[in-house]
């Protein structure tokens, strides 16, 4: 297990170095000049040149990259070229919003998806399964932003069940915080829930046909108990994989969802930074997302071994 972890961590470091290069070069390939963006349309060429010098943009790419990596290792992500604020402060202010939103969306998606999946298996060939299948189809095919707009129009504006926008930090006021995040989380979690539902259903149907399920039923256990203790547990492996794979989609979904619900999150920070060629912010944001991905994948692998004892220790048998 330790060997495995060390290998995985080493792989992560390599991934990070590669990612930092791609980000660094990629950002500089974007059309548009940050110095120009900062100075404004009317600025004199001398003013633009001064800003360029101040940002270190006139140095060679290699020097710029090494400086960038060096600063990052010291925890210094630089300053926003747009507002002059420390990038670390910007990230610290916006990241929690997105993390709460994503976590909430995952919980919603897992609960709804797994429940619908179980219902679909339990009532195979009857109306509850058709309903669950139809819901999944809608969840997969209707785009987030459209669903979000509908939700705001009906659930928020017409019926006033949820606030249409706004954010209350959960650490300040948990009840109001979750209340404000509920609608965005449902919207963000919809397509994930649909995928999870389909996978749970398919994998439950397979598992419920296995020999050990029949043996469990021959013990005299109720169908419900067999469903949860024998069927679900073995089906969850697939679900965890799906969550791991779908998290990328969740992050891009978060960007859109935050925009619709006007949440001051990471997605909004990213979008604003891209539109204004705010190099330091873009770099920091993309790298953080990369780190996030790597950690999530690691977590998924570890979760596997918890659910499936056969994966637990490499080579022990």
């Amino acid at each position: 297990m330790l060997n495995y972890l060390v290998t995985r961590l080493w792989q992560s470091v390599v991934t990070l170095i590669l990612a930092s290069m791609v980000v660094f070069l990629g950002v500089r390939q974007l059309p548009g000049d940050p110095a120009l963006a900062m100075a404004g349309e009317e600025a004199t060429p001398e003013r633009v040149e001064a800003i360029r010098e101040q940002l270190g943009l006139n140095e060679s790419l290699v020097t710029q990259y090494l400086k960038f990596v060096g600063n990052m290792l010291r925890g210094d992500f630089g300053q926003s070229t747009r507002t002059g604020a420390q990038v670390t402060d910007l990230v610290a202010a916006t990241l929690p919003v997105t993390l709460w939103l994503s976590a909430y969306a995952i919980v919603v998606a897992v609960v709804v998806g797994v429940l619908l999946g179980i219902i679909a298996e339990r009532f195979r060939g009857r109306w509850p399964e058709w309903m669950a299948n139809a819901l999944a189809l809608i969840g997969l095919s209707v785009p987030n932003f459209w669903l979000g707009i509908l939700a705001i129009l009906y659930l928020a504006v017409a019926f006033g069940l949820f606030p249409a926008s706004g954010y209350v930090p959960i650490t300040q006021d948990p009840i109001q915080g979750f209340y404000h995040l509920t609608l965005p989380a449902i919207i963000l979690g919809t397509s994930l829930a649909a995928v999870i539902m389909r996978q749970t259903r398919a994998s439950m149907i397979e598992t419920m046909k296995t020999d050990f399920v029949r043996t469990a039923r021959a013990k005299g256990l109720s169908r419900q108990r067999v469903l949860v203790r024998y069927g679900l547990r073995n089906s969850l492996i697939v679900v965890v994989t799906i969550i791991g794979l779908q998290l990328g989609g969740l992050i891009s979904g978060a960007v859109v969802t935050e925009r619709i619900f006007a949440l001051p999150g990471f997605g909004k920070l990213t979008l604003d930074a891209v539109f204004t060629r705010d190099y330091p912010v873009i770099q920091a944001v993309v790298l953080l997302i990369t780190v996030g991905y790597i950690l999530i994948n690691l977590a998924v692998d570890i979760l596997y071994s918890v659910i499936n004892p056969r994966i637990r220790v490499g080579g022990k048998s």
Partner: protein
Amino acid sequence: MTLSTADAPAPLLSVRGLEVTFGDNAEPVLHDVSFDIRPGERVAIVGQSGSGKSTIIGAILRLLPGDGHITNGSILLGDEDLAAASEQHMRGVRGRRIGLVPQDPASNLNPSMRVGAQIADALAASGHRNGADVDKRVVELMTEAGIPEAKRRAKQYPHEFSGGMRQRVLIAIALSRQPELLIADEPTSALDVTVQRQILNHLQTLVDAHGTSLLFITHDLGVAADRTDRIIVMSEGRIVEVGTPAQILLSPREDYTKRLVAAAPTAVAQVRVASGSSTLDRGPILEISHLVKEFRIRGQRGSILRAVDDISFSVERGTTTAIVGESGSGKTTVARIILGLESATSGTALVDGEGITASRGQQRRALRRRVQPVFQDPYGSLDPTYSIEKLIDEPLRIFKVGDRRSRQDRVAELLDQVALPRTVAQRRPNELSGGQRQRVAIARALALEPELLICDEAVSALDVLVQEQILTLLADLQSNLGLSYLFITHDLAVVRQIAHSVVVMKSGTVMEEGSTDAVFRSPSSDYTRELLSAIPGASLVG
């Protein structure tokens, strides 16, 4: 539900006119099945795969797979009709009144649940809730089923148990609530003979001690004869014949039963060895000397497993040598080394004086042509997307033998040799039966006109009647083509039928070696004696 039971004790289970159908308007798979089991009686149902014996279990427990349902008849347990009982009612019957020991220990335990918890679950179904009591009872049950260190092992997962130990866990589960009837569905067919005997002995002790009735499902007449009071022979969903083991084995009335008895590979079955293929120049085709294969055990630094430990033997040209041993004895590793799929740590395996392990490139390719394998599982070893023709001529294409036209002719010729109609050439493996597929595998092995066939458990997955046909085919091919076989098997009865000489292996070493006759008549090692006495059916016929 009128019943005329003139027999003295009322039957515990009485099946009358049972008919089971899968799907709507389909032909029933069970026709008019009727039998009784009296308290304390042990009854065997014997039949080949597809005879409907497992469907009977599904019907009794009302756990038929898919859309199977009972379309006619009754299943009386005492005076309740299980055929008409509600799911709620069945829950009170399963486990409590009828216990099930399922077939395959590998697939019948939940892989993600500790073994102890799975036994505890069976107890929980009867309302045991007190944690400490349940734990104690679980350990008791495991100990009773013959699992050492039960307390520690209860906390392990199924993959940490051997096949035999898993089967003991399943027995513990089945007996946990002391049912009146125990159904054992081929409980040991996936296990080695000696393990099989231990488990069956143990099961019998437990069943006798509790006075439990036993319904024993098996494809093995020998096992049925050794273990039960009455045998029901089934074929194609119908009961063919019922009788005591002596009646069935010694004076069967029906043709089907007669064929089954004749094909049963018992210790004294007729010898099918191709005798007198002596026109060929003798001398060994395969010589194994001081072969050693070591594997490093992952996760444990420096520890090494000697799977094959300094073994030597040879295979004479035109004869069959069998390697017998249980799982883990190293017999398959030897085969893999001879086929060049594995390299030896030291020692040599020479085919016609040339070493495979040492050969490279062209020489190795040439050697590969002369040694061909036939594997155990005719389902797994044929690519399901290939046509039979493509499967058989694949070796010819790989070695660029002949053109398209001549290859087609060769395939037809090979199909004739293995007694398959030429029309199967355009079909795919899943359209063929297990026996037909094994014929295809043999045809493929023969395509390059090899001198030596390595048959790794080549008939173990087949029903007895089919097994007999394949063994006959192999013997015919040997006398016609002068082939040599290295036959790897765990089944001594098969060895008796086909091999000229035999090598008995255990834990990587050769325990005994000699002509089949000599080894069977006067085995020199204790281990061989143990193996011989574990052959089912030996007691009755021998």
